[in-house]
């Protein structure tokens, strides 16, 4: 299969869905000029359907909600996770609840794409991973692809569905390459992918942490530790059974993510495993996450709070010992 980047995969999904369905359109800040996910789309689809917006996140998401309620399928780009709090009223109070409150009187097919994540010295306002905030909200689906293949497949599913989806991308994944089918390749939500089989420890990792966990697993293999790596791919809905089945097999769980530790994604996954598979665990559940501090600027500081390969290795070794 040919290989393309994560950003190209997103672009391809957008393009194919816009060709397939006239109600799909893209809007956000600088989407016309973007060299990433919307690169060149304006040439093919024009400025009406590849719509640059003012820096007006609340208004734009509200506008997407109104467009979605009246027959369109907007795909909104919010430039950074840190801007989600600016428009979370329309995401949390409006988009996520509308279909439920109105008892299906109204459909809400809206996708909000957000490149998040640290590691770029973005500092306090351009580095966060806020998936845990939004995972908390009933009525909102949450996809968090780690590979180009998943980025394309999950985005196609997100656009075709009738629910609002927060689509979490990672800045540092945009340039990563991987095999992606041409044309149709939609991936259902709620199906985790086992990135690597193993019998000694279960590592659940999301987004960029999948890449870090795979590297860690290579090193652990040299020491004779065989890790199983599970990528949930969507956090809502979450494929609980693949995680639980793996824990039943390995008896050990490490959850790795870039959202902060306190009430992070791992807190939920750990709770589910504690509720449903505690008797299979032979060691405490561990989390490898961003430390609970706002993102600092200097690389020395930022590297200190971000979760990394070495920390995964150290954590797994402690569990196995």
């Amino acid at each position: 299969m040919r290989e393309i980047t994560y950003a190209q995969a997103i672009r391809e999904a957008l393009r194919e869905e816009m060709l397939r369905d006239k109600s799909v359109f893209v809007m956000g800040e600088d989407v016309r000029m973007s060299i990433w996910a919307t690169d060149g789309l304006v040439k093919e689809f024009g400025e009406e359907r590849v719509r640059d917006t003012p820096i007006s996140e609340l208004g734009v998401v509200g506008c997407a909600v109104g467009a979605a309620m009246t027959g369109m399928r907007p795909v909104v780009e919010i430039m950074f996770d840190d801007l989600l709090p600016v428009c979370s009223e329309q995401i949390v109070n409006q988009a996520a609840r509308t279909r439920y409150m109105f008892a299906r009187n109204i459909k809400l097919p809206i996708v909000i794409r957000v490149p998040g994540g640290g590691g770029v010295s973005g500092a306090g306002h351009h580095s966060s991973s806020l998936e845990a905030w939004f995972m908390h909200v009933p009525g909102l689906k949450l996809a968090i692809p780690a590979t180009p293949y998943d980025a394309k497949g999950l985005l196609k599913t997100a656009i075709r569905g009738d629910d609002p989806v927060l689509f979490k991308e990672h800045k540092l994944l945009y340039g990563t390459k991987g095999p992606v089918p041409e044309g149709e390749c939609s991936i259902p939500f709620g199906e985790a992918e086992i990135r690597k089989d193993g019998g000694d420890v279960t590592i659940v990792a999301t987004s960029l942490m999948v890449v870090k966990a795979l590297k860690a697993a290579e090193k652990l293999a040299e020491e004779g530790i065989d890790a199983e790596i599970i990528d949930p791919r969507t956090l809502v809905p979450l494929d609980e059974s693949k995680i639980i089945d793996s824990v039943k097999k390995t008896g050990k769980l490490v959850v790795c993510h870039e959202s902060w530790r306190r009430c992070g994604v791992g807190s939920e996954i750990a709770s589910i495993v504690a509720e449903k598979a505690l008797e299979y665990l032979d060691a405490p559940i561990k989390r490898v996450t961003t430390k609970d501090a706002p993102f600092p600027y200097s690389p020395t500081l930022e590297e200190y709070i971000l979760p990394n390969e070495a920390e995964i290795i150290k954590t797994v070794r402690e569990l196995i010992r």
Partner: protein
Amino acid sequence: MLEIYRKMSLIRSFEEKIHESHEKGMLSFAKGFVHLYVGEEAVAVGTCANLRKDDYITSTHRGHGHCIAKGARLDKMMAEIFGKRTGYCQGRGGSMHIAVSEIGILGTNGIVGAGIPQAVGAGLSIKLRGTDQVAVAFFGDGASNTGAFHEGLNLAALWKLPVIFVCENNLYGISVHVSCSTSVQDIADRAKAYGIPGKVVDGMDVLAVFEAVREAVQRARRGLGPTLIECKTYRFRGHFEGEFWKPSYRTDEEIDQWKKKCPIARFKKKLFDMNALTQEEAEAIEREVASQVEAAFKFAMESPLPEPESALYGVFAQQQEVKEK
């Protein structure tokens, strides 16, 4: 003309029935979460008289009048307000969350200002689909101070969208007088900041509202962009049913002064003066309206409550299909 009179009377009568039920304790489960439209009827009716079935509105926490004016059924609204399964939203929404997609009611809303960018989005959708529909955002004076208002107006003006912003300035955001919350005397002046027409109208005069909105709707349908219309109006009742402040933030004299401007009595007099309505016709309309409201009330009372476990249905599209089979 008679239809306008009938619609205003219908809203008044519907709201009075809810007030009466609240006084009797029948809505005690909704502790203060019912906001009545009494006094502001001219705004909803004068506006919606210009709209087609396929035009859109977004509404507010004080939205019963907007829904009735846009053509919602009284029985399903009443059932919704009483939390019944037969309500428009199966008892999930209540007074502040009523939507009727088939007649373009995109929802009353519990968050002040939230409907404004949504109406803009409906306007964008109209433009992209290439139809000649319009979208109306109803909101109050309080909402004109939210970011959603300013962002919404900018987007609609920038993209020349077919949206009419109808501000119901009833002078109070809960208990706070507009002079303590709003930097301008006339909210319509804020239109200038976005380069769109802004107009102040007497919101107690249904024909004045009708005329102003008619012009705005024509502009919008011709692709000339949005208009902001500020209707100076007043709510005869409190912010919410069961309002408890004593002494009130409003004087009795002030309330009485505004009640003298009652939009329904005023329009009725006008119709009499124009010989467009006879006393007998007026009485017939009153009887008809009262019986419609009674029928809606009876429907709501006789309707079943929702099944408790249905509280978990329909959080997502797929899930609903599976569970309700």
